[in-house]
């Protein structure tokens, strides 16, 4: 078990190297050389040469890459061209804000999807099954930016129950989970973001629990005289590793933030930051954000794999 976890963690190293290589390459995907992006149009060639030296752009590519990786490993992702603040700090604060939304959305989606999906799988073909199928198809089909706007119109504009946008007190860019006044701001974006994963996870819960219920081992459980709830527990435990994989993926996507949802709700998260970096051609910020998000995704997958091995003893052997 411990051996499996260590082995699984070692796999992260090549993945992270790949991620850094792609992020680093972003710099060169942009047209022109990077110094041009920094300099005003009327800069002299001497200025440009100075800048190239200053930033190390005159070195061979792999030296630049090595330096960049070493600095990134120590938490130095450079400085944002726009805000002139360290990229690392900007990304981390955005990640924290998005984490509030994604954790909330994930929790909501997981709990609902798990209950509804299991109930649907146990009663396949019934009204409950049909209703939950409808719900999940709706969840997958409804564009979340549209839903966000509708929710704002209904609950913020018409009813006035919840704030329409923002993250609480003016200018605030940090979030307190214990403060209800601030927490209210998260409710609508969380609901908006939860709908898509809700639909996807519910479908996969239903499918995998139904599959587990069709297995021959269920016959043996019935032959042992176990009551229905005990049999369902077996089925769910069998289906869980599969469900976990889907949940992990969905959580990973949510941590990447949603440019649309975060823009609608004016929420300073990673999606928002990514959008800003792209629109302003802020390459260091873009690189840093993508790097941090990719590594978060890798870590989430690691956690899912470890959890899977806890639930399914067969995984441990490999």
């Amino acid at each position, binding site marked *: 078990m411990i051996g499996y976890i260590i082995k699984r963690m070692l796999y992260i190293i090549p993945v992270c190297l790949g991620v850094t290589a792609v992020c680093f390459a972003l710099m060169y995907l942009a047209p022109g050389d990077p110094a041009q992006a920094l300099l005003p149009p009327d800069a002299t060639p001497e200025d440009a040469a100075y800048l190239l030296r200053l930033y190390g752009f005159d070195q061979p590519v792999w030296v630049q890459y090595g330096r960049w990786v070493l600095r990134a490993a120590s938490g130095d992702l450079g400085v944002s061209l726009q805000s002139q603040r360290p990229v690392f700090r900007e990304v981390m604060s955005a990640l924290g804000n998005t984490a509030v939304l994604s954790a909330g959305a994930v929790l909501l989606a997981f709990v609902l999807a798990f209950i509804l999906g299991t109930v649907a799988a146990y009663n396949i073909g019934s009204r409950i099954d049909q209703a939950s199928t409808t719900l999940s198809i709706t969840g997958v089909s409804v564009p979340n930016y549209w839903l966000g706007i509708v929710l704002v119109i209904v609950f913020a504009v018409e009813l006035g129950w919840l704030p329409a946008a923002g993250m609480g007190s003016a200018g605030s860019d940090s979030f307190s989970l214990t403060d209800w006044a601030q927490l209210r701001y998260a409710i609508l974006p969380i609901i908006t973001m939860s709908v898509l994963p809700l639909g996807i996870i519910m479908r996969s819960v239903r499918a995998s629990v139904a599959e587990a219920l069709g297995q021959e081992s269920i*016959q043996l459980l019935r032959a042992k005289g176990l009551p229905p709830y005990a049999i369902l527990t077996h089925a769910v435990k069998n289906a869980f590793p599969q469900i976990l994989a889907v949940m992990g993926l969905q959580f990973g996507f949510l941590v990447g933030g949603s440019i649309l949802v975060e823009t609608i709700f004016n929420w300073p998260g990673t999606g928002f930051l990514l959008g800003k970096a792209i629109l302003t051609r802020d390459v260091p910020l873009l690189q840093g954000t993508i790097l941090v998000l990719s590594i978060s995704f890798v870590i989430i997958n690691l956690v899912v794999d470890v959890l899977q091995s806890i639930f399914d003893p067969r995984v441990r052997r490999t």
Partner: protein
Amino acid sequence: MRNLQTTSVAPVAKDMPLAGKIPVVSPLARVKDLNVQFRSRDATVHAVNGVSFDLMPRDVLCIIGESGSGKSVTMKSMMRLLPPKKTVMTGEIEVNGHKVLDLSERQIRHLRGAEISMIFQEPMTALDPVYTIGRQITEAIRAHEPVTTSEARRRALELLELVRIPSAVSRLDAYPHELSGGLRQRAMIAVALSCKPKLLLADEPTTALDATVQIQVLVLLRQLQDELGMGVIFVTHDIGVAAQIADKIAVMYAGEIVEFGSARDVLVNPAHPYTRAMLASTVHGQARDADLPVIPGDPADLRRLVAGCRFAPRCGVSKSLCLERAPSLVGVAAHHDAACHLINSLT
């Protein structure tokens, strides 16, 4: 109803030695005119058609027949394991005094695993892969008896020793995939025996095993049957296996019993043309290059049963009578019956 009072184990163990000494023994299980149909939108499958037999305590009955002859369905209906929504069952099934078809879902649950147990063909798929062997045994015990976790675990260990699993203590915490095929099948037998059932149903339990392991498991089953005084119904399509373990043999074709008798009678003096053809198509010391005779034609279509004898279209000796009127089981010799119009004219 005075059902379900005998779920505890102790009285069983005390009663069983007496069973042999009492002159008149009532059957452990009695199936009377059992019909099982599977209904779907497109078709009705007549899987079992008027099956009747008695199983005496401590008897091993082998049901043999080709795939789709209704042998497994007959057995599963004795435990009511067939999907209730699609299945229509009529007739009578009585096991250890319980009228199985009349019981409520809750009552039948108390019977399953306690008085009637079942072992399946493929232990790899029948055991739950994410639960330890020990857990799968203890949960069967605790479903029927109010015992503590440690007591259940102690009994699980005893059961693993009973089925001759080596280093049983460590195997309690093993998962099914960590055991070999033979050990897995032993573990499944241990699960089935966890509450000392009176009737053990075995659905081709050796088919998925290697030939050498097959013999070991058969010998073990026979020993356990004797030690625990169980009645056993053993479904197989392997006549060799049946010869090894059976006291009685029922031959099924198209959902009907076509021949019933002691293992010796049926295998040595088969009466029904189907039994004869089946025995003729097995390997028994023919010349190496001789082709085995086969039964011509296809198995009966259970969606559209023909009138008359269901084997007649494939039978080498059938007459016009056979296509018109269905034969019923008649005595060939003492305790040996066959369903064929031509029994007396066959030699």
